[in-house]
């Protein structure tokens, strides 16, 4: 048994539907136990969430994601890393644009007085 099998179950239609219903309704139980989750269950919950977000990306026609990527564990890992890097870049770009807006409010050029 390895984690490939756990990921395969997490991305299956059956568990993705169960997970989304459980998330929305909060009444569907994924496991028999309500508390004291095992590490395997915690990993499984993590992969359910990851694959759910990947299917959302797929539906949104995001770049570099398709069914073949989701079927392949290594390509999925690569896509997740790529998405993380892109998300890290986003706030940097937003901050840069905000600073740019501050420098030139109302498009009036800033005047700097030089001291002698």
């Amino acid at each position: 048994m390895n984690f490939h099998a756990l990921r395969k179950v997490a991305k299956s239609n059956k568990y993705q539907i169960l997970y989304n219903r459980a998330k929305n309704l909060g009444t569907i139980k994924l496991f028999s136990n309500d508390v004291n989750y095992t590490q395997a269950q915690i990993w499984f919950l993590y992969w359910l969430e990851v694959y759910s977000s990947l299917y959302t990306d797929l539906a949104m026609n995001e770049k570099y994601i398709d069914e073949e990527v989701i079927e392949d564990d290594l390509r999925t890992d690569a896509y997740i890393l790529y998405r993380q890097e892109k998300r890290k870049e986003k706030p940097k770009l937003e901050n840069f644009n905000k600073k740019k807006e501050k420098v030139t409010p109302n498009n009036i050029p800033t005047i700097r007085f030089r001291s002698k």
Partner: protein
Amino acid sequence: MNNEQKKEKVQVANEALKALQEWEQSLKAENLIKDNTIKFKVKDVDYRVRLPDSDEQQILEEQQRRKYLELVKDDSFLFRKQWIEQYKKKGIDIDKMEQEIKTLDSEIKKLLLKLAQTQDKKGIKELKEDINKLRDKQYQIVIEKTNLLGYSIEDQLQIHVNSYTAFLVLEKKVENKWIKCFEKYEDFMNCKDVELINQTFGFLNYLVYNRE
């Protein structure tokens, strides 16, 4: 039936077998997560491992403390840092190994980012092969480092805690009731059933520890 047809039949049979194996693996995975116990069979006897309860957690903490004291008092046991110094004198640089693991990690990340943006089949195949080679190389170094530090106080302590956990949570089914498999820790340690011990540690890994 000509050769071409035979080949095709073998291919179909292989694919069916692969699908069957994957299905079996999926069933095992489902069994692994349905509750916080894992049931298994060894030589027709039903066994299970479960999460330690709060009383058992306390016992484990006490065991950890006692074993730690015992190891610290014994001069033949060294801490990881001391082992690293000892190895350095013999020309084995563990710090360098750790650095190598980190360097390989960043190389793997670079290739993964490239893989994510590659769409041609040849490029994907080559990148996957390169990543797997680097991962294998990294794994070899991790194993070597683990073996070198296996006698350290930290590692010996972890081994003791793992064994004691296994002793506490391994149960067998007798007349439809789950009972403790071993009465005493010594009985568990002296158990000669390699299959039972290996399965117990294997499944315990999925229950308690955060390792893939």
